[in-house]
Structures are given as structure tokens and as C-alpha cells.
């Protein structure tokens, strides 16, 4: 039972990360019908920028752990959002009218570009976050010791997701995003600046992905220039699992995938962990191609 509870919380924490990244995929897919393959690498960029900021500013000595983590998250989100917007402007905007496959290839090119840019700047080896920054406390819940960081990470991802959900559902800009996702032409006729909405989506998605990168760095302690591939692929799986284009779906899919993976690693085999999540993906697509919560776009699959 203890192992089950440990794996469950672990799965939820990792699932929160997947969900944060998946939101970027699903939002971009919602408005552009494009799989943004470079999104995983924006996540890595978040992790690397976080490390650079952390080491160069020495925040932890000046303002304490909590305030500095919050400040770091904000800075990383802003920086990665700028990179995301630039990516959209350079690599995707000129391709808006062309064939879908064209934009996919451009996205792959962007991904290769980012990955190698990180490698050129930071070197090919593993980088390590300073490991004594955050207190390693365990909290006792129902008689099981859960690391505090795990809970914080889960809560942080839930807070970010909830904020996004309310932003999309309740604000005027959020309504505009939803309108563009449904019908770009009609949205434009209603006076919505479609280009600006798409730009905004490319700020929000990468900002969330970048914050996920920072969290992975703080939690696991080590980062790698090509870690974005695997996380990106898993997050995309999560987005499809929940139903791509659907924001609550991405959250549900991410958490579910995290738990499935943690349980699979614990009870089946750790070596087959990754294969398990892709197996789940394939089964979902065969049985219910629109994902659990369904794609909200009427289109033949």
C-alpha cells in the first residue's frame, strides 16, 4: 500500500509536468492544427535558462528560497514566452496558408535547431542544478512519507493549469482564443486580431512549458540538452490521450499518463516504462481516436 501511494503521488507530480507541457501542444493544435515539435525543446530551454539565472543572480542567498523560486518561475516564463513568440513569427507565420506537412517539417527543423543551439551554448553533457537549494523535507500523509517538493510541484502545476483554465474561459482574450480555435475566418470577421491571438498562444504555451522545465530541473536536479524530445513526446501523448485541442483534456491526460507510467514502472517493469505510455497512446487512438474528452472540432478522423 505504501508503494502504491508513493507511486501515485510520484505519478501525479510527473503527470503535472506532462500536463503543463501538453497544454502548449494542445493550445497550438487548437488554433493552428499544427504539432509544434519544437515545444519539447522550449521546455528544455526553460530548464537551461532557469539554471543560468539561478547561478548568475545568486538569488537564494539574498531573498530566501520561496521568493527566489517564484521570481525564477516568472523570469523563465517571460523569457521562454519571448522565444516562443519569435519562433512563431519566424518559422510558422509564413507557412500559415500552406500544406500541413510543410509546417510540421518546419517545426522539426526548429526542434533540431533549438536542441543544437542548447548543445552549442551549454555543451553536450549533463548539467546539475545546485542540490542544496531547496529543503528536502518529507511530509507524512496517512502514514506515508511524501517528499515536500513532490507536493509543491503538483500544486504548482495545478495552480498554473487552473489559472490558464479561468483565463481561457472567463476573460475576453480567452474567449478570442477559443473563437480562433473554432473558426479563424469567422473570428476575423468578428473583429478579432487573429495574428495577435496566435502570437499570444505561442507565448502562453511555451511559458507553461518553460516553467515545467524549471520544475524538472529543481526536482530531479539534472538536465540534458535532448531531454525535450522524450518529455515532449510524452506530453504530446498526454494531449492526445485527453483529446487534442481540449484544455481540460490535456490536464487530465497528463496526470493520467504520469500515474499510468509510475504504476507501470513499479508493478510491471521499469525498462518498459516508455513503451507502456506509447502502447496506451496507440490503444487510445485505435479505440477512441478523439481522446478521452474528445476533440471539440468536428472533423473526420
Amino acid at each position: 500500500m505504501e508503494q502504491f501511494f508513493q507511486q501515485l503521488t510520484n505519478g501525479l507530480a510527473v503527470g503535472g509536468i506532462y500536463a503543463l507541457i501538453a497544454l502548449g501542444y494542445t493550445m497550438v493544435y487548437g488554433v493552428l492544427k499544427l504539432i509544434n515539435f519544437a515545444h519539447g525543446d522550449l521546455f528544455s530551454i526553460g530548464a537551461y535558462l532557469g539554471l543560468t539565472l539561478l547561478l548568475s543572480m545568486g538569488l537564494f542567498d539574498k531573498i530566501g528560497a520561496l521568493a527566489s523560486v517564484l521570481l525564477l518561475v516568472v523570469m523563465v516564463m517571460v523569457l521562454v514566452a519571448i522565444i516562443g513568440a519569435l519562433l512563431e513569427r519566424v518559422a510558422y507565420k509564413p507557412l500559415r496558408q500552406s500544406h500541413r506537412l510543410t509546417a510540421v517539417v518546419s517545426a522539426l527543423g526548429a526542434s533540431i535547431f533549438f536542441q543544437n543551439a542548447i548543445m552549442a551554448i551549454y555543451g553536450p553533457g549533463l548539467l546539475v542544478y545546485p542540490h542544496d537549494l531547496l529543503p528536502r523535507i518529507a511530509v507524512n500523509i496517512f502514514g506515508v512519507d511524501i517528499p515536500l517538493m513532490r507536493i509543491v510541484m503538483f500544486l504548482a502545476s495545478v495552480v498554473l493549469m487552473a489559472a490558464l483554465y479561468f483565463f481561457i474561459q472567463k476573460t475576453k482574450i480567452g474567449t478570442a482564443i477559443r473563437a480562433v480555435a473554432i473558426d479563424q475566418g469567422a473570428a476575423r470577421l468578428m473583429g478579432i486580431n487573429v495574428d495577435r491571438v496566435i502570437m499570444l498562444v505561442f507565448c502562453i504555451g511555451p511559458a507553461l512549458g518553460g516553467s515545467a522545465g524549471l520544475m524538472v530541473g529543481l526536482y530531479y536536479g539534472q538536465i540534458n540538452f535532448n531531454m525535450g524530445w522524450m518529455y515532449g513526446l510524452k506530453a504530446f501523448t498526454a494531449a492526445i490521450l485527453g483529446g487534442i485541442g481540449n484544455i481540460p483534456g490535456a490536464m487530465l491526460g497528463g496526470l493520467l499518463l504520469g500515474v499510468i507510467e509510475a504504476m507501470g514502472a513499479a508493478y510491471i517493469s521499469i525498462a518498459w516504462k516508455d513503451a507502456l505510455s506509447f502502447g496506451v497512446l496507440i490503444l487510445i487512438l485505435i479505440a477512441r481516436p478523439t481522446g478521452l474528452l474528445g476533440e471539440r472540432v468536428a472533423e473526420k478522423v
Partner: protein
Amino acid sequence: MKPTQIFAILFAALMATCPFFLNAYWTDVMNNVGIYAILALSLNVILGHAGLFHMGHAAFYAIGAYLTAILNTQYGVPVLWLILPAGLMAGFFALIVARPIIHLRGDYLLIVTIGIVEIVRIALINNVFDITGGANGIYGISRPMLFGFKIAKPFHFYYLIWSFAALTIFLLIRLEHSRFGRALHYIKEDEVAAGGCGINIARYKLEAFVIGAVWAGMCGTIYASKMTIIAPESFSFDESVILFTIVILGGAGSIPGVILGSFLLVGLPEVFRGFAEYRMLIFGAAMMAMMIFRNRGLLPPRPKRYKLGEIASAGGAK
């Protein structure tokens, strides 16, 4: 003679003689280009002709290579005998995995094929059935023998690989102009209309998938015999991405385009070895630039032309 025919003959002549001018290193580079050209041409049937977004081609290639390696090292079957079984095995695997997913829409298919290639790679690393040798792979694959002649040097392999490539090109050109090729073309251009005209879309797509997989499996045999050692990392997702990119950059559906693509993507990085550190960086940027400025590929397929007389006589025969 048309300029394209003259160019094709010049190209063939150059390819037939070039190993005499190249040293062993560059001959080997040309061998790699050849292997990628065959693989990319086989992917072109799926991606270019049938228009299926397939990014897991390395899985079929891996199955061919592993079947060859296992049967050769365990049972001592001569490598070249295994070309056909390797192709059939890969084709059979493709048939099983593609049957339930073939109806999926573009991007979904893309992500499922990525899933398949990752699962195959993980299965190979985890030493499935205890025969794949785990992460270290399989070594000691014997060299191919052809009529008592042992093919071992890059120079010999050059002719083996490029004659197979030439055969591939010939057969694929035939395929392109067959009833099958025309049906695929129609499906790619407009699936609904093709279905309305009585083309069995799922069957044709599946056949294209299997043909591509068979060819990749056969290429796996050649790769295994060339390297004499194979490991799961040679068949990773990155490999599939490179193949995908060759087809798209060269021009999906265009055989000359795909060959040009393999020269550029496999050969050109060797030329710029000096900038090794930045070459993938430039490569990524070039991919984006290509898609923005020339998104149908370097040599896009040319529209089919029919002679007026043929159409008239075909119409008259009815």
C-alpha cells in the same frame, strides 16, 4: 532525347565510375548515401505517393536488420539469402501494425508511427525474447558472398548497394506509372473523391505501407552486412526523422528529388565535417528556411503528362 533523360544517363555514368576516383572514406560516405537513398525511396512510397504521414520507418528497417543478424549469427545462414525473408518479415510486421491504424487522420498517424518506432527500439534494448542482444546489439554478422566472391571493402559494397538502389529506382518508376501508382496519386490528391470513384482507399494505403516496409526490411539486410554490427541506437526515432526529412526536402513523391535529398542530408554533412559542432544547427535552420521559401521540396514531382493520341485511342477503344 529530352534533357532529363540526358541528365539521368550522365548521372548513372558518373555513379558507375565514381568509386574509381574516390578513396575508401568517400566511397563509404557514398555507401551511406546509397543506403539512405534506398530507405528514403521506400518511405517515399508511403509518404510521397500515398501521402501517409509516417515517421516510424526505422522500425521496419530495424526488423530487417535484426532478422538478418539473428539468422546469420545463430544459424549461419548466408547474408544475401536473407534479403527476401528480412523484407517479408518487415512487411508482415507492417501489415499487423498498420491494419488498425491506417484509417487515422494525418497527424494522428504521425504520432502513432512515432510510438511504434519507439516501442520497437525499447523492445530491442530490453532484449526481447532474449535474441536481440540488448543495448549492445549483435556483432559478428558475416560479409555477403556473391558467386564465391566475398564483398568486404567499401569499394565492393558500393556496387552492391548502388545496384540495389538502381533496381529500386527502376521498380519504383514502374510502380509510379502502374494502376497502383495512379490510384495512390488520386488518394493523395483527394481521398474522398478517390473513394467515390471506387478506389478501395484502406487497401491501397495498406499496400503502400507494406511495400515500403518490405523494401526497408531488405535494406536492413544490406545495412547489417555492411556494418557487421547492429545496435538499437542505429534505429532510433532520429533516424526516422532524417528519412522523413529527406523525402520532404527532396520533394515528396518525386524519385529524383528523394535521391537528391539523400545526397544533401547524408553527404553534405560529411563535406562540412570541419564545422561538426554547428552543422546540425545549420541543418535545422535550413529546414525551416526551405519550408518557407520552397515548400514543395527541391525537385517536386512534375505533373503527369499523357500524349494526346494515347488518350484519344484509349477513349476510342471503349
